[in-house]
């Protein structure tokens, strides 16, 4: 929680615009603006919460840049926010008679904590280790957890989602649109996670996040004043690069009959989803319209189970494999 803040901002906005106006459509037009300056902020309290989804750190900033240019047969505009910051956003749009192109880059930070401490070190992605000497010392009652707490290292708990998007619309005839949309998002960072050895015994760790989601949608659509017909495909691929989390037991180095030396947990499974969509509508009399949408979607329900070293054989369950769903509706 931000208790108080002192913000010193120097900002200069520039605006350049020239409009050459014929009485009909302008022959060319150019407009632009930029908002830049420097910021110095004093935050008492939880700075991470103050900056949860944004980057308000000190220094120079270019928060808002706009550029619009239009000719007799085309139009282009560029938007950029919070440039070179964790939460930067860039978007460009180009339009001409039968073509529309959108390119976008967006970063969304999630800042959870900046004063977190842990004894764990990430040996490799998804493997969190504690110094063996500490584990052995606590197991043999030479140390206590409290006595080794000063060896815990500070780290920031945060993640960031980076997204790139492409949208292309091509219009071969007046009534026909062909569209292609591609969006890919990468999420990387850490989040707080209760890593459990059973009940009454769990540890708080920073679970790694390293995932990518890619969505593709392509479609063809015919429409005029009387009706509309659309056919589309949508595909979604989610890929988790760290499907398993392994962590040391801070209380033991070696396994015993009642407690293991390490724990293992499944994280988010990779998955895919595909759909084919048809939609149509017909204009009817009396302000009425008949509209229909049908989607057939397939989400392959196959995944590998987390291989568990510490799970007794008698507790293992077979994987349920190859469940399939078919749904009607529209996706995406």
């Amino acid at each position, binding site marked *: 929680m931000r208790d108080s803040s002192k913000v010193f901002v120097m900002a200069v906005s520039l605006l350049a615009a020239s409009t050459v106006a014929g*009485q*009909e*459509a302008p022959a060319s*037009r150019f407009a632009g603006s930029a908002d830049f300056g420097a910021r110095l902020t004093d935050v008492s309290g939880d700075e991470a*919460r103050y900056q949860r989804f*944004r980057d308000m*750190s000190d*220094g120079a900033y270019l928060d808002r840049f706009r550029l619009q240019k*239009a*000719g*007799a*047969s*085309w139009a282009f505009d*560029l938007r950029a926010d919070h440039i*070179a*910051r964790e*939460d*930067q956003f*860039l978007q460009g749009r180009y339009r*001409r*008679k039968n073509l529309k*192109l959108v*390119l976008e*880059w967006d*970063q969304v930070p999630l800042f959870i904590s900046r004063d977190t401490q842990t004894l764990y070190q*990430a040996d490799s992605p998804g493997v969190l280790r504690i110094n063996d000497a500490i584990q052995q010392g606590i197991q043999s009652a030479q140390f206590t957890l409290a006595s080794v707490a000063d060896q815990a290292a500070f780290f920031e708990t945060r993640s960031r989602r980076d997204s790139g998007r492409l949208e292309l619309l091509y219009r071969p005839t007046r009534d026909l*649109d062909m569209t292609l949309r591609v969006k890919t998002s990468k999420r990387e*960072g*850490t989040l707080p996670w*209760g*890593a459990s050895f*059973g*009940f009454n015994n*769990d540890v708080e760790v*920073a679970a790694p996040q*390293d995932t990518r989601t890619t969505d593709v949608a392509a479609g063809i659509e015919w429409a*005029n004043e009387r009706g509309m017909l659309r056919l589309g495909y949508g595909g979604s691929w*989610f890929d*988790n690069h760290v499907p398993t989390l392994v962590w040391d037991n801070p209380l033991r180095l070696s396994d015993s009959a009642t407690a293991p030396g390490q*724990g293992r*947990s*499944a994280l*988010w*499974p990779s*998955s895919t989803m595909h759909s084919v969509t048809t*939609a149509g509508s017909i204009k009817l009399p009396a*302000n009425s319209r008949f509209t229909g949408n049908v989607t057939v979607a397939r*989400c*392959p*329900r196959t995944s590998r189970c*987390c291989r*568990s070293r510490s799970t007794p054989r008698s507790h*293992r*369950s077979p*994987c*349920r494999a190859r469940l399939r769903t078919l*749904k009607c*509706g*529209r*996706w995406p």
Partner: protein
Amino acid sequence: MGTNRGGSRRTSSVVSPAGLAFALVVCGLAPAWAGQETPAPAPTPEGYVGVNKCASCHQAQATGYRNSPHAWAFDERTPAAARGCETCHGPGQAHVDDVGAKGRIKNFKVIAPREVSETCMKCHNRQEHAQWQGSMHDSRNITCIQCHSVHTPKSERSHLKLASVTETCAQCHRDKAARLLRSAHMPVREGKLECATCHSPHGSPNVRMLRTGNSVNEFCWSCHADKRGPFLWDHPPVRESCVTCHDPHGSSNERMLVSRPPMLCQRCHIATRHPATRYDAAAVAAPSNRVISRGCVNCHSNIHGSNHPSGAYFHR
């Protein structure tokens, strides 16, 4: 943590490579595609007076029109490629001949809401706009011009009457806008999302006018694909609907939960091995790991589902 990947950096030192590539591509393509000719304006037919005549009196409206995509004559679907102002307002000769007389030209402030929508939908009749007729907004007699202003927009995009999508929606949906100010929220007030990121105000085949999918869950998975599964062990309320536990508009509880754990979990789990006494008011004061921090989710951390062979209770 020693290898907290990307976790300790506060600011990017440079614009990302993807951003640079994007700028280069756009800047490179723009001049190359700039050589098209504007189609010659069609001769003015009987009853029509042309844009110049309209602009001679309605200068403010004409300026707004010329600065909008409606004035892109190179796009054959725009009013500029047809009859300009009269594409939407109808032939203007009668209005010019008898200025001030009512009913001589189509005035969107006075005609019936259905007629307003009908006019806009002559061109805006594809993609999500095709869902307008019969949509929640249409069935409540909302018209295009209650949110959009063709001549005097305040927003950068979409010709909105107010500066942002969220402000526009908040004119009516005040309860939802108020929830955005709660401590746990989507990054809407930070400007990274807006109401229209999730909702399609022009209509949708999904519930709650959600933009994609055919259920709440399918829509949420479009960003939170990690919750999509497949899971060996499913948590039934997760499969049923994300909003069983989360309030996407904002909450005073962490992770936008509709109630704080363990009370949230106790809405269902009140039977064997989940006695209410363990989590009741008296226990809140006790330092139980079932009450502090994330409550039940301290141990049941895979609460959305687990693929661990022993993950039936979502604790691994």
